[in-house]
Structure formats: structure tokens, C-alpha cells
């Protein structure tokens, strides 16, 4: 557990020393959200209808931007190899890194979504559900992102390929997440899709680190 704390605290410290990089995905998210109304020139009603989907896809895309910071810089300066040599199990180390990454990149993004949803004229009653769905999807999403980063850590230019690997896997998240939001917009209880998202999160957090740790080990060989 102390290894978890140490890696978690270190990653947070490193992230905040380069805080301007943390803002990149957020700004990208805002730009994508702003581009859709420009491209569609929709009425208020149409904007409300496409809002859920646009915001979810924009959040998924912008979360991909932050993925290089997860393992790449640590692999370049050798600290990832040191972590691999340490007696602490790699799964715990990886879990700590993923948790720290989710906290500094996905959480601010999730905080932005209700604000932008409100600007899309979505009913304010649905905003808590939307935020909850995003929160429940975040662990699974960060595990997928970390898996993509780990699979490409041994590559010089992994950036373009990660999207091909990660985005298809996020399909179920998108289905359940937007379904929950749509249900609550129509005034129906969104419990079932939310529970599905929670189940996926449990599955991803318990099994994902094993696969990520294996991928990191192979990538550094």
C-alpha cells in the first residue's frame, strides 16, 4: 500500500509541475464542443437532442490527448524501469499511476461537462445523471487509455495508433453513458445503464492493471 501511495503522490506532483499540459485536453474539449454548433448551425431544440452524444464523444477524444504523459515520459527518463525493478508488484504501481492520471485529467474534464451541457440547453435535471455517468465511466476509460499507452510505450511514434486501439473499446461506455443521460432527460430512472457502467468499472479496475502491467513489461524489454 505504501508503494501505491508513493507512486500516486509522485505522479500527482509531477503532473502539477507541468500544469499547463493538464489544460490541453480541457481546451481541446471546449474547442470540439464549440465546433459542433458551428458546423451544424442547429436550433435550440436540435442542440439539446445532439448534446449528449456530442459531449460524450468530445470527452472521449480529448481524454486521448493526455495519454502520452502516462508512461512515455517515465519510460524516456528511465524511471519506469526503476519502478519495474522495485519489489512492489507492477500491478499496484500501474494502478497508482492510472488513478493519479484519472484524477488530474479526467476529473477536470468531468467537471467541465455539466457546464457545457448547460450551454447546450440540456435540461438541468439531467445534469447530475450525466456527471454521475461520466464519473462511473471514468475508471474504465482510464484503464483503456492506460492500456493503449502501455501497448505503445515501446514505439517511437505511438500517438496515431493509440486512437485505433482505444476508441473502439469505448463503445460500450458510450452506449450506456448516453443511454443513462437520455433516460433522465425523458424523466425515466437511469438506474440500469448506470449499474452497467459501475459493473464495467469494477471489472476494468480489477483486471485491467494486470494487462497494463504485462504490456509495460513487454514494452520496456
Amino acid at each position, binding site marked *: 500500500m505504501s508503494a501505491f501511495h508513493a507512486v500516486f503522490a509522485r505522479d500527482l506532483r509531477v503532473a502539477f509541475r507541468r500544469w499547463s499540459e493538464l489544460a490541453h485536453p480541457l481546451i481541446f474539449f471546449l474547442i470540439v464542443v464549440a465546433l459542433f454548433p458551428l458546423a451544424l448551425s442547429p436550433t435550440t431544440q436540435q442542440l439539446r437532442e445532439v448534446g449528449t452524444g456530442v459531449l460524450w464523444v468530445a470527452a472521449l477524444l480529448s481524454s486521448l490527448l493526455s495519454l502520452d504523459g502516462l508512461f512515455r515520459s517515465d519510460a524516456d527518463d528511465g524511471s519506469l524501469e526503476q519502478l519495474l525493478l522495485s519489489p512492489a508488484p507492477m500491478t499496484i504501481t500501474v494502478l497508482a499511476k492510472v488513478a493519479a492520471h484519472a484524477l488530474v485529467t479526467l476529473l477536470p474534464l468531468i467537471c467541465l461537462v455539466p457546464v457545457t451541457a448547460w450551454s447546450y440547453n440540456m435540461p438541468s435535471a439531467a445534469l447530475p445523471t450525466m456527471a454521475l455517468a461520466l464519473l462511473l465511466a471514468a475508471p474504465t476509460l482510464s484503464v483503456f487509455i492506460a*492500456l493503449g499507452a502501455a*501497448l*505503445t510505450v*515501446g*514505439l517511437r*511514434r*505511438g500517438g496515431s*495508433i493509440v486512437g*485505433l*486501439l482505444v476508441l*473502439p*473499446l469505448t*463503445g*460500450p461506455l458510450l*452506449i450506456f453513458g448516453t443511454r443513462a443521460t437520455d433516460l433522465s432527460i425523458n424523466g425515466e430512472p437511469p438506474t440500469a445503464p448506470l449499474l452497467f457502467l459501475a459493473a464495467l468499472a469494477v471489472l476494468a479496475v480489477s483486471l485491467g492493471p494486470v*494487462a497494463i502491467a*504485462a*504490456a509495460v513489461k*513487454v*514494452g520496456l*524489454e
Partner: protein
Amino acid sequence: MKLPRWFHQLGSPPYVYRLAERLSPWLGGLGCGLLAVGTVWGLVIAPPDYQQDEVYRIIYIHPQTAYVGMMAYVIMAVAAGVGFVWRVKLAHAAAVSAAPIGAWFTFCALCTGAIWGKPTWGTYWQWGDPRIMFEALLLFLFLGYLALRGAFDDRDKADRVTAILAVVGVVNVPIVHYSVEWWNSLHQTSTLLSEGGPAMTSDMLIPFLIMFAGFTLAFSWLLLRRLQAEIIEREGNARWIRELAVEGAP
């Protein structure tokens, strides 16, 4: 526990190469023969459907291609997993051989599905339909696997890294299969594996099953042929391959 001799031999490239050489004509001949018989039986002899009339006849192609695509993914994932855990190079070669075939059959399943969809659903492609979306996801997984392979220079590393992706992606296969039951899909539910036995009369069922057998054998034939090519590429400088080249020369 003592494993039988043939089991150990399955890890030996020359043994597997020769085994594939011996099996190939049988699998290829029998597979193509069954496909020919099944095609004629299904398209000409079998009676038209009471609901879909002649259009239903694509059922002798479409489910089989989809099934081969999914089977190829499972074979790829199992082989990649075996290769990753026990470091069997031949298993990695098998996984690599299955990927392009699986991608092609999944693509064919999407195409034949679209052709069937137009007369029966009124549309070639329905965005958001769960069966179509997850089948497309299967195709993207195959393509992602191949793209990730292509990005590595070092073959051993590519084998091991892509193995992880293949194993993770296998969760998609049951989702594809059950998507028609879990969600309201336009797609009809399984005809063969329905409750209370196949929902088909025997004059339709027999060519349907013949096509399944034909596709399976033809797939195995393609897989073994690709595996042979992959073995030659990987073991190119081995003595037995040079001897093989001399033997095989006219």
C-alpha cells in the same frame, strides 16, 4: 503429468509445417466440395421461405461468414495467449495467420448483412444497431491488432504486445453473439441456436449446416496455408527450410 508426444510436437515448426502440408489438400478439397454442394443445394434445391421468399437464401452465406470471423478472433486470442504465457513462437505465428482471415470474413459478414438488410429491413446500414455496431467493432479490433503489429520493427516484441491486445479484445466476441438478445436489434435472433432446436425445417437445415462445415474447413485450410507461409518467413534461415526448398525444386 506426462503429456503425449504429439502435444510437444505441436510446438515444433518443421513438424507443424509438414502436418499442415499433409492436411491441406484434404481440408481444402473437402471444404471447397462442401461449399459447392451447399451452395447449389441452398440456392437451387431448398424451398423458398414462407416469409422472406427467395431473399432468405443469403442465410447460406451470411451467418457462416460472421461465425468464421468470430471463430478466427477466438483462435487468434487463444493462440496469442498461449504464445504469451508459455512463450511458444509457433502460437504467435498462428495468431498472426488468423488475423487477416478473420478481418476479411468479418468484413464479408458486414457486407452480406447489408445486402440482406436492404430488402428485409429497408436499409443497408443502421447506425446504432447493436449487432452491426459490435460486429464493426470486431473488425476494428482486427485492424487495430494488425496496425499495432505493423508499428513494431522487432517481431518478438510485436508478438508479445499484440498478444495482450488480442486477449483483452476477446470480451467483444460474446457481446457480438448475445447482442441480439440483450438489446432490441433489427437483426433476427439466432436460427440455429434458438430455444427448442433449430427454427428451420430439415430441407433448409441440411444445406445450412453443410455450408457451416464447408466454411469451417475452408477457413482451416486458409489458416494452415498462411501458417506455413508465416513459418517460412520466421524460420527462413533454418536448415530444414533450405532442405525443403531443394526437395521442392523441380
